[in-house]
């Protein structure tokens, strides 16, 4: 479970995230959406323990990320939009290394199964330079899942994947959620968020402007037209916030 209270992240004078509070329970998938510069990536990096928050608390499965970072990080996995791999380790060596870092006893069958599931079995001795972008992404996922995390963060998970890869990624996310993981996905692809997320959080200028289940969000922003399209809801929410007035249609480019 993820519980965040009053998360604030400052870069000097600039407020990247402002008093953000949220909760994601096991089995829930929260979509973190917002325009560019809304603070999505900063939020995820704080939640993953990469950067320290300026203020606020983050609990991962009951462990305070600031006070018990090891225990908290043991439970989470963070997948960035760009696959970040060690150039000199093969696919299998990445898994061996990750297993030791997380202390995964008897990791080999789990790793083998992940390689099969992610169609990397025949690439086990390949270096990252020999893999396509999609395959690198799959390797990052295999490494992230080898310790069976209970909390998963995805930053733009579909970037660079082909249609089949996208389908598999969606299935994989939903499978982890069904197995009890709490998942947060940051994405600009609103149809993805709409399709797989049970909850939505809309960020703008570092502030939460709306959150709740899909139904709650739809109800709040559907207006007189009664639309349930997330794209329309997103524009209404962000423009309403910007204008501080009644919702209007997005500008046509």
């Amino acid at each position, binding site marked *: 479970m993820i519980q965040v209270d009053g998360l604030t*992240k400052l*870069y000097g004078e600039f407020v990247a995230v402002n008093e953000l509070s949220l909760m994601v329970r096991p089995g829930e998938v929260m979509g973190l959406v917002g325009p560019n510069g809304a603070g999505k990536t900063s939020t995820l*990096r704080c939640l*993953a*323990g*990469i*950067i*320290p928050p300026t203020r606020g608390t983050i609990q991962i499965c009951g462990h305070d990320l600031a006070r018990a*970072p*090891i*225990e*908290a*990080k*043991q439970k*989470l*996995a*963070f997948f*960035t939009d760009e696959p*970040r791999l*060690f*150039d*000199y*380790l*093969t696919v299998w*060596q990445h898994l*061996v*290394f990750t*297993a*030791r*870092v*997380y*202390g*995964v*006893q*008897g*990791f080999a069958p789990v790793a083998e199964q992940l390689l099969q599931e992610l169609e990397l079995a025949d690439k086990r*001795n390949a*270096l990252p*330079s020999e893999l396509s972008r999609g395959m690198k992404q799959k390797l990052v996922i295999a490494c992230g899942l080898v310790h069976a995390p209970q909390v998963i963060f995805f930053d733009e998970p579909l970037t660079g994947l082909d249609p089949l890869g996208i389908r598999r990624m969606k299935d994989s996310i939903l499978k982890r959620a069904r197995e009890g993981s709490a998942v947060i996905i940051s994405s600009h692809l609103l149809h993805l968020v709409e399709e797989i997320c049970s909850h939505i959080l809309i960020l703008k200028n570092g502030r939460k402007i709306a959150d709740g289940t899909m139904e709650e969000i739809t109800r709040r922003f559907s207006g007189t037209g009664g639309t349930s399209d997330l794209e329309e809801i997103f524009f209404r929410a962000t423009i309403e916030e910007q204008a501080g007035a009644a919702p209007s249609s997005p500008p046509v480019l």
Partner: protein
Amino acid sequence: MISALLYLQVTSTRNRLVTRIKRLRQPKYLFGGIVGMLYFYWYFFRPILSAPGRGRSVAFQVPGLSPDLMEGIVALVLLVVVLFSWIFPSQRTALTFTEAEIAFLFPAPVSRKGLIHFKLLRSQLAIFFTTLLLTFFSHRLGGFAWIHAAGWWMILSTLNLHFLGGSFARTALMDRGITPWGRRLRIVGLLSVFLVLTGAWIWRQLPTLEPGQLKDPEALKDYFLLAVDSGPLGVLLYPFRLLARPFLAADSSVFLASLGPALVILAVHYVWVVRSNVAFEEASVEASKKLADKVAAIRSGNWQAAQKNFKKKRDPFVLAPAGPQAVALLWKNLISAGQSFSPRLWIMLSILVLSVGVAVAPTLGRSGAGPVVVSIVGILFSWTFLLGPQILRQDFRQDLQLMDVLKTYPIRGWQVVLGELLTPALILTALQCLLLWFGASLLIFTGLKNIPGAAVIGVALGATFLSPVTNLLMLLIPNSAVLIFPGWFHSKDAVQGIEATGQRLIMMLGQALAFLLALIPGSLAFSAVFFGLKFAVGALWSAVPPAALAAALVLAGEAAMGVLLLGRVYEKFDLSDELRG
């Protein structure tokens, strides 16, 4: 069209320069710039400004070499450089453009000739700086600076054109089905025929050297001059001599007289390159991708990744899933360092080196070469301390670009630090122990009478105790700098220029100072135990190992404290600033 390309080149250079000047507002670049400028002034400009022959015609001369001999040697060196450029490269023609240049210029209505001109124009900037640097060096040997600069420019520009023309020719050969190895065989075959012909000509035409002449340097010089001045070699070297003459000119009149032929050679090369009709676009796109990766690696501070073509490497040892996580980092970094660092190989190497040491020592002792070999081993041993930590960077300096990945791992800070330090420390220690005991076995078994065996063993044993902890301490310093001053290592701006040189100098001086300070407690412990034992029981050489062990324990304590402290720094390390650049 060329005006647009010229505009691109000029504005890019100007903007780069402006960016560099602007960044001097940041203290790290300002201090780096000041130190860098002082360094360049002291080592390059000052000798020119204070040269005794400034303003007068002091001929350029390498001590012991006559102008004729110099010309012959320079021509021969140029020939070898050119031959290498025909023999070794295997890739197709690749005019290296940046990815942006490819995206903008390749689809644009720019002729291939225009692209070549752009490439030539751009290479002139690099040639200009290389010319400047080489002039600083060569001018120390006398002559006019402007003649050196013009001479270097002529040589470098001609070589640049030759390499480009050569790469076009190699591609044309590949297009005709001649593989790189086929080309190499043909060139080496032609070279062999030429060498046989030259040998035969020397045999027939030149007087045979008398045994006494072989020991006379003057006679050998004359013979060399005869061989390179006339006959087949003389003909082959002639264009290279013409190219070298402006650079070697003693005064302006000689320079002007030699300029014409050199310019003709340059012009011929230019025509050759511009008229070559070889497709280079595809290879250029590939090369630009590699260039972009290399630049990205360098900009993120990972110089080694920029140099490397990674190859699959065996696991150095079996990494069990349970146990200290620092070992996982050691395992990872050993793979990065290369499979040559497996424990099995080191054990075999140790046995081999010691066996060879013991076997050859008596022969060396009889021939009198023992002290020379031991001195060489000693120098290599010292170099491992001086250069080892700079060369072996399988630590935070390598992993800084993946720090965000490391930060997500559930590992205590001290374990991360220890794991990062272990690989270079282990490799250096193994190397030092090998050299140490090889040298020691040579000293003992060569039978050098003035050095007692007990002294050799005592010192070697002491050094063995000190080696690992000293390495850990030495590596702790640059790694601390990475975490405490990451901006000096990890910059989104290109790490180039005078300010970058200054930054490196400041870092080196800081590291040396910190290391010397860190050694003080260890030195005190060594002195206390050594002199204590000496005065108490009269031991001299046998007091060295216990004294070294005491020093090693103190240094190990320092290293442990350093690892713990740096672990805390790592845990508090805020990537926010770095991510924002």
